[in-house]
């Protein structure tokens, strides 16, 4: 590899941030965060210099490996990933913990490396690195709960990687190429293509498909305050990006995404831990993106990836505001919060901007891109999906738009009077809030990043009709909330654990695992015990025969030997005589 090739290989946000992560670990405590910010800024600067169509490929054992393939789709995700990484560095400025600082760069690095990957092997490497680096964020609180959760999280992430690898092998066998391209989930006969199906499932685990979703709720709320925010951004959105790259227009995604938008709403409603509420919101929001990718039209794909861009910012903002409340009060439970608006008004203000954005109120980030996804369903004349997405929009308003700010800052007075959030947190939230409003009011810079430019030039989100339909939907939903509160029909928050899919592997699954282990131990004991007895008995018999007291150890007179020699020779003589 020449020097120029090596420099080109290193000029990759994934590599730059990974090297930066190691540099951070070696740096003095006081310099860690400034170095992290500098590394993210440098990576963003290098990204700025990249041109659409840039790529880097080399030959490895006769296979073409492409660590860099830069196009309009990867650009959009790389831009927003840099914004998210930078915001998280600022938000957690007070945290100097070595492993957490390392993961705060290495994990986004892995996601960015995956976004730039032009071949499946490169993607697989970054995919697994994302799993391995992110688990440090789950383990950061150093509690038994977070430790066990981290193990479960890693098992599921690695399982996704193993399935991905299986799919890659099968795809390579079919196509004789490792290049990442669009795949069809079904063959011409309508049967599932196993290779594509394996990749689909691997991506489905990472994007938290229904029934495969619960690792998000299990792990993310147990991470550190800053860790939860970082985690909320990268893994699921990397999977969304890969779906947009590989399975765009796959009809199965429409229904899967639609289900993803619905079921978290009900779990979020009854959840007491507000960080967990937001993890259900991740499922719901990713569902919108998956539906858009499933429709596969220029408008809906623009909507899906544009919504991912905005969502990363305003969902982070909501996580940050709940995190700030948690930082000051030590809890994120709705039953223990409330009334914080008195002493944390700036955090409240930023939280409300996040809530308005995620609810897609006109003038905020969600409004300008969610319409494209809904238009995708309407253009396909799919009434049921369209109604489901509208229903889910009301659900988003309920759990993310109202529940988060209401139970954190209003509701019952918890009596807590914490100080306002620390300055670095306020700066990060302020930037995220500014971006949420800026995108909502002036979306052209975001639109310029969307992959289907020919379509977006005709799109105007600020039509009177779009305003009216969205305001009707949201204002009347708020009215329903106000009336439910007024008539005491809104369910009170209750400290509880709500069972979800993880129950299957945490309780019966765990019991089954222990039963299997017990059975294997019992079988091993029987087999090993039997073997030991058999060997002992052989040794004992051999000893009895050959030992000092054994029959073969006895001394015999010479005459006895001579007699036996005569017998043997005589027998041989007789045999020879008879044989002739």
């Amino acid at each position, binding site marked *: 590899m020449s020097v120029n090739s090596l420099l080109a290989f290193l000029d990759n946000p994934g590599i730059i941030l990974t090297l930066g992560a190691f540099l951070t670990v070696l740096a003095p405590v006081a310099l860690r965060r400034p170095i992290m910010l500098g590394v993210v800024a440098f990576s963003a600067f290098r990204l700025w210099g990249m041109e659409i169509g840039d790529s880097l490929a080399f030959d490895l054992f006769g296979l073409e490996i492409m660590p860099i393939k830069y196009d309009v789709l990867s650009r959009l995700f790389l831009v927003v990933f840099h914004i998210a990484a930078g915001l998280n560095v600022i938000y957690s400025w007070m945290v100097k913990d070595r492993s957490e600082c390392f993961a705060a760069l290495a994990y986004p690095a892995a996601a960015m490396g995956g976004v730039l990957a032009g071949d499946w092997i490169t993607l697989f490497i970054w995919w697994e690195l994302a799993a391995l680096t992110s688990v440090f964020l789950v383990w950061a609180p150093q509690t038994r709960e977070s430790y066990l959760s981290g193990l479960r999280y890693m098992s599921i992430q690695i399982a996704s990687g193993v399935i991905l690898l299986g799919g890659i092998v099968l795809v390579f066998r079919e196509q004789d190429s490792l290049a990442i391209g669009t795949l069809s989930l079904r063959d011409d006969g309508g049967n599932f293509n196993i290779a594509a199906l394996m990749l689909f499932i691997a991506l489905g685990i990472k994007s938290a498909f229904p029934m495969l979703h619960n690792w998000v709720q299990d792990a993310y709320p147990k991470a550190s305050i800053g860790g939860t925010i970082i985690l909320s951004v990268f893994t699921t959105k990397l999977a969304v990006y890969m779906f947009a790259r590989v399975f765009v227009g796959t009809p199965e995604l429409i229904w899967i995404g639609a289900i993803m938008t619905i079921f978290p709403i009900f779990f979020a409603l009854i959840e007491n831990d507000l960080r967990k509420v937001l993890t259900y919101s991740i499922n719901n929001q990713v569902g919108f993106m998956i539906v858009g990718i499933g429709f596969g039209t220029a408008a809906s794909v623009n909507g899906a990836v544009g919504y991912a861009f905005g969502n990363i910012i305003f969902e982070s903002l909501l996580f940050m505001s709940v995190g700030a409340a948690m930082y000051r009060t030590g809890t994120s439970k709705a039953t223990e919060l409330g009334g914080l608006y008195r002493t944390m008004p700036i955090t409240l203000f930023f939280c409300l901007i996040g809530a308005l954005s995620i609810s897609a109120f006109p003038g905020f980030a969600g409004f300008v891109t969610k319409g494209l996804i809904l238009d995708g369903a309407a253009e396909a004349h799919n*009434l049921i999906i369209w109604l489901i997405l509208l229903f889910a929009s009301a659900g988003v308003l309920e759990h993310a738009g109202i529940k988060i700010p209401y139970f954190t800052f209003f509701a019952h007075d918890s009596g807590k009077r914490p100080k306002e959030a620390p300055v670095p947190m306020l700066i990060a939230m302020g930037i995220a809030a500014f971006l949420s409003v800026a995108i909502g009011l002036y979306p052209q810079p975001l639109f310029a990043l969307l992959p289907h430019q020919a379509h977006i030039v005709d799109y105007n989100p600020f039509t009177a009709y779009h305003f009216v339909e969205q305001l009707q*939907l949201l204002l009347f939903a708020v009215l*329903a909330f106000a009336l439910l509160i007024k008539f005491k029909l809104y369910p009170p928050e209750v400290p509880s654990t709500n069972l979800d899919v993880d129950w299957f592997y945490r309780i019966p699954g765990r019991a089954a695992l222990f039963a299997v282990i017990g059975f294997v131990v019992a079988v091993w004991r029987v087999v090993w015990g039997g073997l030991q007895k058999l060997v002992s008995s052989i040794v004992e018999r051999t000893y009895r025969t050959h030992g000092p007291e054994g029959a073969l150890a006895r001394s015999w007179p010479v005459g006895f030997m001579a007699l036996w020699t005569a017998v043997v020779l005589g027998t041989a003589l007789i045999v020879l005589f008879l044989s002739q």
Partner: protein
Amino acid sequence: MADHDAKPENTEAESKKADSQGWADHPVFVRGFLWMLYISCALAAGAGFIWQKKKPHFELEAFPVFFAIYGFVMFALIVLLGQHLRKLVGRSEDYYRERE
């Protein structure tokens, strides 16, 4: 940020509820907010009769207050039906801690 790094504040204040009433709890604010909401809803509903989609994809879209009714009913349904899920899946806070 490690949870152990969090700095819970106001432990003294937490023991007794603050006696001062915040602006959001003031009846004037609550009434004002509700009235503003009612008026906004009325305006949004009225606007539905003025601005309508020229080429609706579904007949429902042509109904001037469809989104208002749908938003209200769906939100109420989510809350009124969804809360019963707790009876099915709700357990004590220590449920997993006791079993793992």
